[in-house]
């Protein structure tokens, strides 16, 4: 084996050393020249989703009959508005805190049920059973004139 010192290139000569360094330099410059635009191109960008950026949302009261739930898109993510009885209007994130499935509203039981692993929540989002570790995150909701207004908390 040749004396493999750091001032020698792949072929073990000084000339080879410079050739190797030049190759390494231009090689990495051109590799970067490809990698940088490619990475920038592929990196996901925020898509302008309808309703994103609006900090509050109005839903006509008549859209949510008593006992029923309505799913809407709020801040680019799903939200659910439910009226379990005459008095209450509740807005929650329907994204299950277990592993992220969208819970559904069961009218008869007045409960949310997660279809993925059977997590159960009451109309306020409190966990009644199953794997979810904590309640459905709430939005603030109020009734103004004939509209339900939901906001981030």
């Amino acid at each position: 084996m040749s004396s493999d010192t750091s001032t020698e290139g792949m072929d073990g000569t000084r000339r080879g050393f410079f050739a190797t360094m030049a190759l390494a330099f231009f090689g990495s410059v051109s590799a970067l020249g490809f990698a940088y635009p490619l990475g920038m191109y592929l990196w996901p960008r925020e898509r302008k989703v309808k309703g994103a950026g609006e900090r509050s949302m109005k839903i006509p009261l008549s859209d949510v009959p008593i006992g029923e739930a309505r799913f809407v898109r709020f801040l680019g993510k799903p939200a659910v508005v439910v009226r379990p009885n005459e008095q209450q209007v509740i807005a929650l994130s329907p994204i299950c805190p277990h592993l992220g499935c969208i819970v559904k509203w069961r009218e008869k039981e007045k409960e949310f049920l997660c279809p993925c692993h059977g997590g159960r929540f009451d109309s306020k989002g409190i966990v009644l059973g199953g794997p979810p570790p904590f309640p459905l995150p709430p939005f603030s909701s109020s009734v103004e004139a004939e509209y339900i207004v939901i906001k981030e908390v």
Partner: protein
Amino acid sequence: MDIETLHLGPIKIKNKIAIRLFSALDDRLGVKEILDDEVFEKIVPAHLGFWSCFGGISFFLFISQVLTGMLLMVYYEPTIEEAHGTVAMIMNEVPFGWLIRGAHAWGSNLMLVTIMIHMVKIYVSGIYKPPRELNWVVGVTLFLLTLGLSFTGYLLPWTQLAYWATVVGTETPAALPYVGEYIRYAMRGGEEIGQVTLTRFFAIHVMLLPVITASVIGLHLIQIRRQGIAGPM
């Protein structure tokens, strides 16, 4: 391979690690033999020059089309609602999107130019003559496939230009006697140009034709290897 210097054609490698890595591959796959025979010690006829390069350039452009095309597919959506918007997004918002689309659109035109130069060169120097007639036929097929790729790709941005070009391009074969109208119907996927047309053009453009073209390029290259490069004129 237990050696001090690895010779790959004009390249001499003495670096221990490089030699070890190379030997590891060579012991298992016999890479050196292939590299020597096909690359480093391959004898290329002396009469090859500038005009002999255009087949290879066309091949390079095809590879580039495949790569840039796959990148365009990351953002492009083939629906009449989204097609134009996503192409505009690629051009105006996605970083380097203009570069990828530009390379693809320019590449498609350049590829036709280089193929035509390649064909003229083969024709003028009589290389198409026996025993290479079959490869001429395969070559013409490749030219037609490339035209097909350009034609189907052109509709995809769903602009006025794209739309009316496809109207014209599907109306032209309709002038053929008896079969013309059926051809137009099949190309459009119906009486009119709409979502169905865009869907089938997209499928043909990104899957059907690229896969067929790649295979036919394979046939082209295999024949060249079997027959060797033609001698000087």
